[in-house]
């Protein structure tokens, strides 16, 4: 219902009649609860959506059929009637032995894919015995310092038969190398293994901030993995372009959409510039979005993402293969929305967020555990999170038809609004010379910080409600839930394992491989073969990253 109307269409005339005859008298008697209704992204929502709001949306061009361009309604013609999404719970804590046991537990409960959470030293490319690792080993994920740890992590889990997602970014090429060597030792064929490496370094500089090297060499490492996987591990997704962390850092839904897809375009451009064929490597680029509280806004975001991606791949890159045009994504419920107060309420939040992901057509889903605002999840909390997905899939009936909300005036209009907003951001970022340049200028970082601050203020003014936090609080609430405690002995255990691995290996072979890696990094050759050789010789994660740190240097964040 925009303010300026040049010609009144029959739909608009009908809406105006309703406003005068039916709405106005009611508003006079009982005004609405507030002046402005808004989403969790602080975006205004109108009272009612009617055919007038979808007047400029063309069913054939913009919405179309599932499995057909522009894929607004999904990439599969049968939706979830053919195959349900993959239930992929992110897990990792303590030692590789402990996480291996959690993986086996989750699979025994019906989970259909694995997802590894690494600890902070691993994410930053440090070994468990590095000075900076003190207090952090095994805390936020599992500790992996060498191939020996990776072998234990996947002990008894055949990598040819399960898809594994790895959340690792700055040192992603090293962990990919370890994964491939473990697969090889299990006798798996690289051409058959499938899974996903997060490997999205741009969003690290933008939001998650687990970086090592300066941006441009880090982008080169990403392109090395594209090239290597395209040739040798063709079913593997070498990147998961992630909006999740952008949203968690405080962006709006539209900013999450815009920055993530623009990151995706940047990776495609770098791949093309390195001589890769769009229709060969882009089909293996996957995405990862957040599922936050505002139900319709989230669903619109996923639908808009598919439409924008397919059009962009066709228009900017002249892509031909339908698989290049189809945006596939993983969803995780919003960790940032979970509350410490009355933590069982989080089960309800997660269920609603997960439902949005499903109605948006996600390919895989992680549901957060209710205790995650406090610590890593216990077995019991992780189980409820998985059961939540199983209830949505098998009890609610939402999977019975494809894109059940398609055609809703509200949702279609919101999908269009998301798309238009994202395209405006694309234009701004293109004018800056692309995403790498925009990130160097601090543009997305500042936009996100501003949104995070505005949201915090809206919560403090009571305009955004968080149940149990700024409304319906319980005085002197006693939290009685059990939480998972990672004890400080993990570091000692990991250091002992590391020393054992170092004692067993051939130091000469390690030194040679690391030297080869440095030469590849200096000359601009693909670094993957030398990285694989190094980890196969049990060079540690820290040693491999140090070799690259020597060549590339370290990233320093400018003050924004």
């Amino acid at each position, binding site marked *: 219902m925009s303010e300026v109307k040049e010609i009144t269409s029959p739909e608009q005339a009908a809406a105006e009649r309703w406003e005068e005859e039916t709405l106005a008298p009611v508003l006079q008697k009982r005004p609405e609860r507030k002046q402005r209704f808004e989403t969790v992204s602080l975006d205004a929502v109108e009272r009612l959506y009617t055919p007038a709001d979808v007047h400029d949306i063309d069913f054939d061009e913009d919405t179309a059929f599932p499995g057909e361009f522009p894929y607004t309604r999904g990439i599969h013609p049968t939706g979830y009637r053919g195959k349900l999404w993959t239930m992929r719970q992110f897990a990792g804590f303590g030692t590789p032995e402990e996480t291996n046991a959690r993986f086996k537990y989750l699979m025994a409960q019906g989970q259909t894919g694995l997802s590894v959470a690494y600890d902070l030293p691993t994410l930053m490319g440090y070994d468990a015995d590095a000075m900076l690792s003190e207090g952090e080993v095994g805390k936020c994920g599992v500790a992996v310092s060498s191939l020996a740890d990776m072998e234990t992590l996947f002990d008894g889990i055949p990598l040819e038969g399960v898809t594994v997602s790895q959340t690792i970014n700055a040192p992603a090429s090293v962990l990919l190398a370890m994964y491939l060597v473990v697969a090889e030792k299990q006798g798996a064929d690289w051409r058959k293994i499938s899974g996903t490496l997060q490997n999205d370094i741009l969003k690290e500089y933008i939001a998650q901030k687990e970086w090592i090297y300066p941006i441009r060499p880090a982008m080169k490492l990403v392109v090395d993995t594209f090239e290597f996987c395209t040739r040798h591990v063709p079913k593997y997704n070498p990147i998961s372009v992630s909006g999740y962390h952008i949203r968690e850092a405080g962006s709006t839904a539209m900013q999450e959409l815009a920055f993530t897809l623009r990151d995706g375009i940047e990776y495609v451009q770098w791949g093309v510039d390195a001589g890769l064929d769009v229709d060969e490597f882009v089909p293996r680029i996957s995405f990862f979005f957040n599922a936050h509280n505002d139900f319709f806004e989230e669903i619109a975001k996923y639908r808009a993402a598919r439409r924008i991606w397919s059009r962009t791949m066709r228009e900017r890159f002249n892509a031909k293969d339908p698989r290049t045009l189809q945006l596939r994504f993983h969803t995780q419920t919003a960790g940032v929305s979970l509350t410490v107060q009355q933590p069982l309420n989080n089960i309800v939040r997660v269920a609603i967020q997960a439902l949005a992901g499903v109605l948006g057509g996600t390919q895989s889903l992680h549901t957060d555990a209710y205790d995650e605002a406090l610590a890593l999840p216990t077995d019991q909390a992780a189980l409820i999170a998985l059961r939540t997905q199983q209830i949505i899939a098998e009890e609610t009936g939402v999977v019975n038809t494809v894109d059940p909300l398609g055609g809703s005036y509200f949702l279609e209009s919101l999908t269009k609004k998301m798309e238009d907003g994202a395209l405006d951001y694309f234009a701004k970022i293109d004018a800056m010379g692309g995403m790498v340049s925009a990130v160097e200028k601090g543009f997305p970082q500042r936009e996100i*910080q501003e949104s995070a601050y505005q949201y915090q203020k809206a919560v403090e003014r009571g305009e955004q409600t968080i149940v149990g936090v700024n409304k319906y609080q319980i005085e002197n609430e006693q939290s009685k839930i059990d939480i998972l405690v990672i004890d400080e002995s993990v570091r000692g255990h990991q250091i002992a394992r590391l020393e054992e691995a170092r004692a067993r290996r051939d130091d000469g072979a390690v030194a040679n491989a690391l030297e080869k890696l440095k030469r590849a990094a200096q000359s601009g050759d693909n670094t993957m073969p030398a990285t694989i050789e190094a980890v196969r010789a049990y060079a540690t994660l820290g040693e491999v990253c140090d070799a690259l740190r020597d060549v590339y240097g370290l990233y320093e964040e400018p003050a924004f």
Partner: protein
Amino acid sequence: MTERKIRVLVAKPGLDGHDRGAKIIARALRDAGMEVIYTGLRQTPEMIAAAALQEDVDAVGVSILSGAHNTLCPRIVQLLQERGMDDCLVLVGGIVPKEDVPRLKEMGVAEVFLPGTSTEDIVTYLRDNVRPRV
């Protein structure tokens, strides 16, 4: 006599890169008229104590979400005391289990702000508790 502005160092120790909270707090304290210095990410306790001394701050706000608080926070307190900054308040915010709060306080942390705390409450706490300087 003009009142001295409260000076606060907002610090991110450890390897954790989640700086949404730290940046919101820094901006809210600035909006409340305080002078705020933000350390940036991945500071060791030694770097934080050195910055606190150099900037002559009244309080250090430590933001930590990685679970490493039991190792890092007491060390910051200890290093500040060794530098004669006994009056400098050490505040902690982030993902800290309630069970850890008494122990952190015993070790010299002045206050722990758990998730859901409003920035107003932190401003009020600082105004009420920073020791006035002559």
